[in-house]
Each structure stands twice: as C-alpha cells, then as structure tokens.
C-alpha cells in the first residue's frame, strides 16, 4: 500500500509540470493584449513598448515560462497586472471563499444525492424511484445561472428573506459562521449543489440497482442476513465508484463556478477566474488556473488512495 501511494505521488510530479506548461501556453497563445487592463486604447506605441518591457512581456516565451515556474515553485505567483496585488494572496483568499461555498454545497448535494439515489435504486421502478429520478434529472438539466437568478428574485427581491449578493455584511475577510454571515451562503450553496446532487443521485441509483441484482446479495439474504446487513454490503460495494464520482464533483465545486459566483458576487475562484479572463490579467489567470489544476491533481491522488483502501482489487503490483 505504501509503495502504491509513493508511486502515485511520484507520478504527480510530471503531471504537475505538464499542467504548469499547459497553463502557461494556453494563457499566452490566446489572443489579446496582456496589458489591456492597465493601458488605455489610446496609449502610444512608445508607452506600450515601455510597459511591455517593465512587465517582462518583451522576453521570449521560454524565458518567461522558466522565470514564472522558478518563482511559482517558491510560492510566488507574481503580482496581478490589473491590481498590483500578489497573485498568491488573491488566489488563496478566493480558494478559502470557494471552500466555504463548495463544502456547504457538497454537504447538501452529496447528502441529498446519495439519499435520493439510494432510495430510487432500492425501490427500483416504483413511484419513489420515478420521483427521485425526476428530481435528479431536473438537478442535472436546469441551468444553474438561471436557477440562481430565480432564487434571488423569489427569496431576495420578493420575499426579502435572504441577501442577494456578497459574502457577508463586511465582506469575506470578516467571515464567521453565524447567521448574519451564513444567510449570504444559503442561496449560492443551494444553487451550486443542484448539479452534483443530480449526478450523485443518478450514479448511486444505478449502482444500488445493479448490486441488488447480483448473486451475492441473494446469497446474503439466503444466509438469513437482515435488510440492514444487506444494505451495509450494498453500500460498501457501491462506495468506490460513488466515491470516484463524488471526488470529481468535489473537484469541480472547488474549482468554483464563474456563473454562480458572478450571479451572487461570491468572491471565490470562479469569480476571480472570470475577472482575470476579462481583464487579460495573465499572472492572475496563470496563477488561478495553476492552483485549480493542482487541486484536481491532488484530489485525484487522494481519491485513488481512498479507492484502493476501500477496494484492494485496485492495488496492483
């Protein structure tokens, strides 16, 4: 097991290097002027050249990449062109805010998704199954940008129960887990949880329905195991696949959502990424993509390890 984990950790090194290269290349081959956020359209050619030199964009791409990578491995992702603030601080603040949102959405989505999926799979083809399936299909299909706006109209504008935007009365820097702040979290978290809820529900339903058809379940019942004991076996068998799906969903949620975070002005990674794209803020864009990509790499590593711990058949060599 330890050698398996070590091997997986070693594999992540070239993956991270590749991810860094792709991040840099994607950002630089996209069209647009990297200084568009600080140079007005009427800036003279002389001023443009002066600024390109000041920010190092006049150097060759390999040189720019190596300088950026050298600093990145030391935790320095440079400064944002648009704001002048350190990218690492910006990204990690945003990650913290997205974590608050993503973890809340995860708890809602995975709990409801697991519950609906299990009930639907257990009572396959019954009206309960159809209802749970309908809810999960709606969850997957409804555009969450639209859902967010509808919830704002109902709960903020019409009923005035919950705030429409923001991350607390004093901003996210003063976040605490009390009602005054958590009321800002409810609408974006519910909106964000709908898609993972639908996906997890569909996955769990299919797994449970499939496992219940298998011979070992009949064997367990024949041995006189009670429903509760059978369910425990079903859950254990469904867990590795469900965990893989949940891991991917958690990865997506941790990546933030440009749409949801924009609708609710939630200052997470999606919001930050959206701003970096529209401002052509290359250091911010590179830094945010890199950190998010690293999340995926690390999360996949953890899911691999967890899956292997749950299902020893996956451990090879």
């Amino acid at each position, binding site marked *: 097991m330890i050698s398996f984990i070590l091997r997986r950790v070693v594999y992540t090194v070239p993956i991270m290097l590749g991810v860094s290269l792709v991040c840099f290349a994607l950002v630089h081959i996209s*069209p*647009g*002027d990297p*200084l*568009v*956020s*600080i*140079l*007005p*359209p*009427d*800036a*003279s*050619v002389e*001023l443009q050249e*002066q*600024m390109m030199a*000041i*920010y190092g964009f006049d150097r060759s791409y390999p040189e720019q990449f190596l300088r950026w990578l050298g600093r990145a491995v030391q935790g320095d992702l440079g*400064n944002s*062109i*648009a*704001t*002048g*603030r*350190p990218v690492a601080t*910006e990204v990690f*603040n945003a990650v913290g805010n997205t974590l608050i949102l993503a973890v809340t959405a995860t708890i809602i989505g995975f709990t409801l998704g697991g519950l609906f999926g299990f009930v639907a799979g257990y009572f396959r083809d019954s009206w309960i199954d159809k209802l749970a399936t309908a809810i999960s299909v709606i969850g997957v299909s409804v555009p969450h940008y639209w859902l967010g*706006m509808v919830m*704002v*109209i109902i709960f*903020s*504008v019409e009923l*005035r129960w919950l*705030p*429409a*935007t*923001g*991350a607390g009365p*004093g*901003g*996210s*820097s003063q976040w605490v887990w009390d009602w005054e702040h958590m009321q800002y979290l409810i609408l974006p978290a519910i909106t964000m949880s709908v898609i993972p809820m639908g996906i997890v529900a569909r996955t769990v339903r299919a797994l449970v329905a499939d496992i219940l058809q298998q011979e070992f379940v009949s064997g367990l019942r024949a041995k006189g195991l009670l429903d509760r004991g059978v369910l425990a076996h079903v859950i254990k068998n469904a867990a590795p696949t469900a965990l893989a799906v949940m891991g991917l969903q958690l990865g997506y949620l941790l990546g933030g959502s440009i749409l949801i975070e*924009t*609708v*609710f*002005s939630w*200052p997470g990674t999606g*919001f*930050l990424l*959206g*701003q970096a794209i*529209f*401002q*052509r803020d290359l250091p911010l864009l590179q830094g945010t993509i890199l950190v998010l990509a690293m999340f995926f790499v690390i999360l996949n590593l953890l899911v691999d390890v967890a899956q292997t711990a749950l299902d020893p058949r996956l451990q090879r060599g």
Partner: protein
Amino acid sequence: MRTILYRSSAIALTAAVLAAGPVWAEKTLTIGMTAADIPRTSGQPDQGFEGNRFTGIPMYDALTHWDLSSETEASGIVPGLATAWEVNPDDTTKWTFTLREGVTFHDGSPFNAEAVVWNVQKVLDETALHFAPDQVGATKSRMPTLASARAIDDLTVELTTTQPDSFLPLNMTMLFMASPTHWQALYDAVDAAITDPKERAAAAWTAFTFDPSGTGPFEGDLFVPRERFEMVKNEAYWDPARTPTIDRVVLVPLPDSNARTAALLSGQVDWIEAPAPDAIPRIQSEGNVIYSNPQPHVWPWQLSFHEGSPWLDKRVRHAANLCVNREELQVLLGGYMGIPKGSVEPGHPWWGNPSFDIRYDPDTARALMSEAGFSADNPVQVKVQTSASGSGQMQPVTMNEYVQQSLADCFFDVELDVLEWNTVFTNWRKGAADESARGAHAINVSFATMDPFFAMVRFVSTETFPPVSNNWGLFGNDEFDALIADARTSFADADRDAALARLHTRIVEEAPFVWIAHDVGPRAMSPKVGNVTQPKNWFIDIAPMTIEE
C-alpha cells in the same frame, strides 16, 4: 429593601440613557458599481472613468476640477488644488500653477509644490523611487504632452509640456494628488527582508491601496479586494460646499446587471450604476429614482477614408447621417439615449455652427445617394466592424442591427462584422488599412468627449494615424492640422474654445463619422438618497449628497 434597589437602578439607568442623548446612527451610502473589481485606490484609478468617479474624485483632488454642479450646462473646469494657472507668454511650453494654501492630506501632512512634483514623477519619471508603472497607463495618455514639474516655491509649481498645449489645464483634472509623506512612511515600514528598492516601492504602493491618503472629501477606511471599499467623511475638507454629511460610502463591485438590480430591489444597496433598461420600470415602481443626462460620449460609426472606401464620397457620408431614425432608436432603448448633433452638442463651448444639420431626413438622403450613383437596385456595399458587448458600447448588436435596417431605406447594404470586444478595441489602433479591419469600411467603437484631444484631435489629425492613435479611418489633411494647431496654441480659455468650435464645425461638415447616439448614463437610486445632481459629465459628485436613515 429590594424594591428600593430596583427603583434606584432603574432611575440610574434611565438617567444614563438620557444623558447619553439619542442613539447615533451612521449615515451610510452603498453603491453597486458596474466594475468587476474595486478600482485602484492609490490615486490613479483604473476601470475607466468609473474608477475616477468612485475612488478618484471622492478621495483625491487634482489641480483642476470638473464643475459637476449643473445639470443643464456643459461641465467646465474650476480651481481645485490650484487656485490659478497661466502659461508663460515667452515660452508657451511652461505653465505656472498657484496652489491652494492650508490644504493637508488625510495623514495630516501638508499639500505643497513638492507634493505636485512627486505626483508628476510617480507616472513620468522612471528613475524616481516611487515611480508606479501600473499607474502610468491610466494617466500618461490622459496628459500626453506633460513632461515634467518643478517647484518654484512652497505654493507655486511650474509644469512643462513637450509642445505648446492649451489643453493642459483640462488634462490636469486626471492627475490626482496622493500623499508623498504617507507613501514614504509605508515604504519605510516594508519588511526589511525586501532589499531591492523597486520591490520595496511596489510593496509600498500595494500598502497604499489598503491605506490611501489624498486630500479629498472622503478618506479610505476598509478595503476588501474585489468585494468592497469603504470611505468615511473627511470633516476637515478644505471646501465647505463639498464637506460631506454622509458618514460612510461603501463601494461594491457588481458587474452583472441583474445582480445590481436585485441588490437595489432587495435594499442591499442604495444606488446602482447602469440598470438594465428592461428592469427600469420595475425599479421605478418601488419608488426608486432614475437619474440620467446626456454624457460627453459618442456612439458612432467611424468611417474609413482608405482607398476604395465608399465613404470617400461626402454625399454618401451625409446620406448615412440623414438616414438613421434616431428618435425610433431612442424608443427601442427605452428612452435612455441622447440624440446627437455632432461630437458635442449645441450649447457646448466647442459646438461652433456647422452648416450640416444631422437629422432624420430620408428623402434628402436618397437624393444624395442617387446623385452619388446608387439606387435600390444598386446599393452601396458597406461592412462595419463592431463588438458583441464592451465598455461604453451600450447595446451594440441591437443598435447596429437597427441602423442596418434604417440605412437599407437609403440604398445601403450593410454587413455587420461582430467580434469580441477586446479584439475590436485592439483593431481600433491598427487602422482601416490593416488586415485586422477585414475589409471593414467603418468601425463602431464609442468614445468619451471630455477633453479636446479625446473628443476630436485624435480622430482628425494626420499625426494620429495608426498605430500612433485612434484615427482608424485615416481622415486628415492640412486644413484640419492647422485647425488643431490653432486650438493647441490658443491659451486664453475663450480663444481656445473658439478655435475648438471652428474645428468641431468642420468635423461635422466633413462627417468622418455617422453620429448615432449619446449615452445618458442612467443610474438608479433609492429615494433615501438626496441632493443628487447628475451633470452632463461622466462624473458625479458624491460629496454634497445626503441620505436618510
């Protein structure tokens, strides 16, 4: 005994409450901006003019100010931190500014001539320790001829330009004065582990954004990047007429128009910029007030004079200007559009008296087109490059499609080439002859007309052909160059305005644009916000406003 104790305590409590007087509630004005981030707070804001509006003018002063006190008159300039200015008659590249006495920065340090020199150096002198590269872009092109500054005495400063330039006092509204003393204190406080002076200076400027110091009517108080910026009133402000009564102003970036509308309707903010036109009736139905006024802004087609362009024929240019039914377009936009008569409007000091009247007159337009050899069976082919969205672009696709239909009545066959905003913006600097134009005969990029260079000069001078500046259409000749030179060297305000009026007159007559719309800058405010003056300007003065709790 217990009863006596209770009574004594109750009396003591009541007395204490009465002695304390009425409970004081802070008067807070919360504003939802269209910007996606808080504009820079260190003196030279980014995010276009919205930055100047919200983190420039409220916190900082410039040597000259826009007069934002009238809803009916075009804004002129008035004394700011300078009480007077004059050009040196013997060397018209040198200007003397007399500074206001007794002004202090928010940190308590005095404002003086050395502070002006320091603020000029921050964007022009690369050798200065405090040179701020990220503030250069938003500043240098706004004062293209400013070269240097020199302190003559404590309250007199001399500014030098690269060429005689009567526009300098107008340009100086954009150079905001930050506190050198406060910056130096922040520089000294930078972690000693950072030894490179440039890195220390960059760190000091970052610290300055969180703890700014200017001389304006509001002082920075709380900065949460990308979320909110809070300012409190500066009770010691030097101008009693602009000393605020609002205790705190909170700026919130809300780039999505639906989010802004929801924030206003749910009572989270008191004021939103640019509400979505289709949400305005709903906003008004809740008692909110919409303020709007034609802004110094033009939404045009800038025409190509490159070889082979159909616009080389003046009759075609005039016909297009006469064939757009702007009143109908105004209805399409819910009334939130100004109808242009030129780059500036009648009554403006630069208006002049053009012989060509921009109006809706399709019969005359068709007659001109027939004269030029076009007909319904032989329409002129015109390609226009525009964007799907963008700052100041209003609703570009809807508006361009309307103009396309309108011009079809006058023998124009218009093809729209819709590109991403930043691409169009970049192409604007490359010109009609460049391959980026993709054969377009016109480009649709809106622009501000706050000062003469941006309003007129850059579009009609042979010195501003691409890639130098935005004369995309390559329009220009000796006559226009002479008119520009005359304006730049007319130093008395009245003479300069008269020269600019002659220039504007000829621009309208020659029609290097199809003038289609002016933005009216709608903003929605809660009825709690009072004493609001929406001037004919991109800016608005928050300082005199009031708010009810």
